[in-house]
């Protein structure tokens, strides 16, 4: 292995948040033309290390050198100038600007001093096409799904003069196809000598793309390894400090043949974009939903839970037709929805973890019947423990938790309501291997206790593992619902991807 001069070298990095130590004496280096994965549990300090590297955060101690020369980034601008281009875990784009504006904001192409809109649109369309995405560059960013927004953030990073590309969970809501396109782009950059930092909780992706792996645990460096020399079991053991938890084996769901009514049934519900859809969900059943980007997974979830109103069709709850006027009305009937977009539609960042967890319950009781503070804290504490939210500090603003832990807070908020139907849109997005198995286990246990779950995930393997049946969506159309036992990952992949023409 040639030991070239590292492009970037960080050493002795220490970061404190108040009294809490997020990083302690961490070293990290990047060679030119390598893909280097940063691995660790939720809250291990990956994003924090990234923020030090991109100048977004000033560490309390530590040295940084580029091409062997010591430097100091006082701001993200300094880092950008040195060629460090970041894509953060939480999408920090401007939803009310167009896609093209978001890609070029701050460095718009100019002609005679004025913004050259045409060039901007064309170049935006080019980079997006390079990532395999065809969206109108003039459309408003906020109107797109999280996956598209994630790709736009990546496109933004790519259009800069990049020497170091930093990708913090760029694939957390992408499907296999988009991941493939992204990896192709990453390999091209590698050829040009760009160094890439890659963070993901998907081990397959890490092993596919990276040359080297650095593992963090509890803010400390565990070690740096060559990917080819590190077995997966060893990687997981190094990350968790223990072996991998076993996936939960659930008793298969028994469709009660006594003709009991489905808890939730949709008959022909649809909107202008989503074709009429039939779904039925029994008590204690888990329905996995599989589909590609833009296939209508989120649209369906929102119709089932009163977030959006269907233009046609009826929803039946326990066999009675119900119009759901709002999420509030749906929650009152026990239908809870967890959005895929935790930053815009989930976490109330400045409120405490405890307030975030009890928010829905409090809203349901009404403003005037406050949960007694002692009980609210007890309840929040019990969910923090059950979902292993770390750090277990009830008064910490929820926005200061690591991404995966924020996801758990959202889940806790809904579980605290003891709903009858839980619609989870990408509930394991950004969650580490250990916690993912944990959430799958919890969903399984709740289902055994009679809770019905709709489980949406871009990860097909997870959909099959958790779901008793899988609903397959394609092009805003529910094509089929099959028992999970009847499909394999490969056949499911073929089903979600098959072009619609072959059907007719």
């Amino acid at each position, binding site marked *: 292995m040639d030991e070239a001069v590292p492009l970037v070298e960080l050493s002795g990095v220490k970061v404190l948040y108040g009294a809490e130590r997020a990083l302690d004496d961490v070293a990290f280096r990047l060679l030119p033309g390598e893909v280097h994965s940063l691995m660790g549990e939720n809250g291990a300090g990956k994003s924090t290390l990234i*923020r030090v590297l991109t100048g977004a955060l000033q560490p*309390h101690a530590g040295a940084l050198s580029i091409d062997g020369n010591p430097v100091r980034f006082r701001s993200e601008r300094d880092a950008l100038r040195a060629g460090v281009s*970041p894509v953060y875990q939480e999408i920090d784009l401007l939803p009310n600007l167009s896609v093209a504006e978001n890609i070029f904001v701050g460095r718009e192409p100019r002609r005679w001093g004025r913004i050259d809109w045409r060039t901007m649109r064309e170049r935006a369309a080019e980079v997006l096409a390079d990532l395999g995405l065809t969206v109108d560059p003039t459309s408003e960013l906020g109107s797109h799904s999280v996956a598209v927004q994630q790709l736009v953030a990546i496109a933004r990073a790519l259009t800069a003069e990049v020497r170091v590309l930093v990708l913090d969970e760029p694939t957390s809501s992408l499907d296999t196809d988009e991941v493939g396109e992204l990896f192709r782009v990453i390999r091209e950059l590698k050829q040009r000598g760009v160094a890439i930092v890659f963070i993901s909780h998907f081990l397959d992706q890490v092993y596919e793309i990276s040359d080297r792996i650095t593992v963090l645990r509890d803010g400390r460096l565990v070690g740096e390894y060559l990917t080819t020399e590190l077995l997966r079991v060893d990687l997981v053991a190094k990350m968790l400090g223990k072996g991998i938890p076993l996936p939960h084996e659930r008793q298969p769901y028994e469709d009660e043949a006594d003709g009991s009514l489905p808890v939730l049934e949709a008959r022909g519900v649809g909107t202008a974009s989503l074709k009429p859809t039939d779904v039925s969900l029994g008590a204690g059943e888990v329905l996995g939903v599989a589909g590609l980007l833009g296939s209508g997974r989120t649209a369906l979830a929102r119709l089932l839970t009163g977030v959006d109103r269907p233009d046609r069709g009826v929803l039946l709850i326990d066999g009675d037709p119900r119009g759901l006027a709002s999420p*509030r009305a749906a929650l009152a009937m026990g239908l809870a929805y967890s959005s895929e977009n935790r930053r815009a539609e989930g976490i109330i960042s400045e*409120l405490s973890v405890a307030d975030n967890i009890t928010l829905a319950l409090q*809203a349901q009781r*009404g*403003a005037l019947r406050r949960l007694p503070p002692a009980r609210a804290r007890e309840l929040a504490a019990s969910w923090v423990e059950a979902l292993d939210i770390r750090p277990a500090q009830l008064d910490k603003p929820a926005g200061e938790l690591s991404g995966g832990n924020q996801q758990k807070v959202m889940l806790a908020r809904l579980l605290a309501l003891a709903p009858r139907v839980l619609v989870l849109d990408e509930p394991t997005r950004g969650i580490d291997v250990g916690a993912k198995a944990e959430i799958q286990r919890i969903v399984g246990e709740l289902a055994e206790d009679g809770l019905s779950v709709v489980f949406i995930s871009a990860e097909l393997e997870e959909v099959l593992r958790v779901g008793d049946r899988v609903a397959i969506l394609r092009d805003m159309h529910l094509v089929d619902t099959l028992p999970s036992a009847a499909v394999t990952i490969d056949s499911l992949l073929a089903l979600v991807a098959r072009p619609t023409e072959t059907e007719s």
Partner: protein
Amino acid sequence: MRNIVRHRLFWPALALATLITVNSAARPQFLRVTMRDGELYGALIDILRNSAPLMLVALGMTIVIATRGIDLSVGAVMAVSGAVALTIIDGSSDPNGVGTVLIAVVTAIAVAMVLGVWNGLLVSVFGIQPIIATLVLMLAGRGAALLVTDGFITTVNSEPFAFIASGYLTVLPFAFFISVAAIASIAIVERRTALGMLTEAVGINPEASRLAGVRSRGIIWGAYVLSAVLAGIAGIIYASNIKAADANAAGLLIELYAILAVVLGGTSLQGGTFSLAGTVLGVLIIQTLNSTILFMGIPSAQSPVFFAVVVVVVVVIQSQKVRSWIRALGASGRNRRSAATTEVAS
């Protein structure tokens, strides 16, 4: 020490303390409180009394701002409520009767409430931007008040009515008790029920709150009603003080001072977490500053400039960014890395 400096009320409290210190150094009589006929008098007592209208309006503004809104119509609502109260007293056969004054006050507050319902309707149901929605009343309200008073400055001589602004309850001014009652009841309602937390949730992230089942429409609507009711009471105190309804001057520019008080108190104009105690400090800062300007005999033409300078200094010192720059400067001087700051969106 560090924790004290970090406390969100530290800077407003320090600003107020500095103002008081400067004042008492410049004029020793500033701190003097004298007892006359069992009633307390002095510059400090004046500040407590005269701040009542701004206090009420700023408290309402705090809640509205917490919901990501703004209420520009408070001054106009004050004018309307004063006009309604005085017209009723003026037209009655017994302007000195306590009953008359009570009817006048209750009617005026009821009218203010209706105006708040209107604002809330525009914002929470029709989804009009708060600044535009309340601008409607800000512009139309004074016209309505003039209509009520037939275009005149109605003056009255009513003992019980004058008592509201100038009377004493035991040793302290009655108006001060109105302030205290408003502060206490709002603090209790917001913090002893879940209303405060839900209001903050709606202000921080409206869509997440909606998905969590929070009744955001009702919460936002309620904030505008509260703001208008408090402005209505403020209008009554103002009218009682000058014993007249002056539709053009009542509450003029008070919306700006109220917003200023909220900001001085450390509540962000972006909505979300709010601090009632901060607003109270903000109001006292403004009122003390006014008293200082009067005392220093600054010509009225220049007093806004003086006011602006002090406000800019306070606001700049409070700004997170400026403080982290100062800290960074200090730290690099000592050749050390500065404290971690949170991520700044690019």
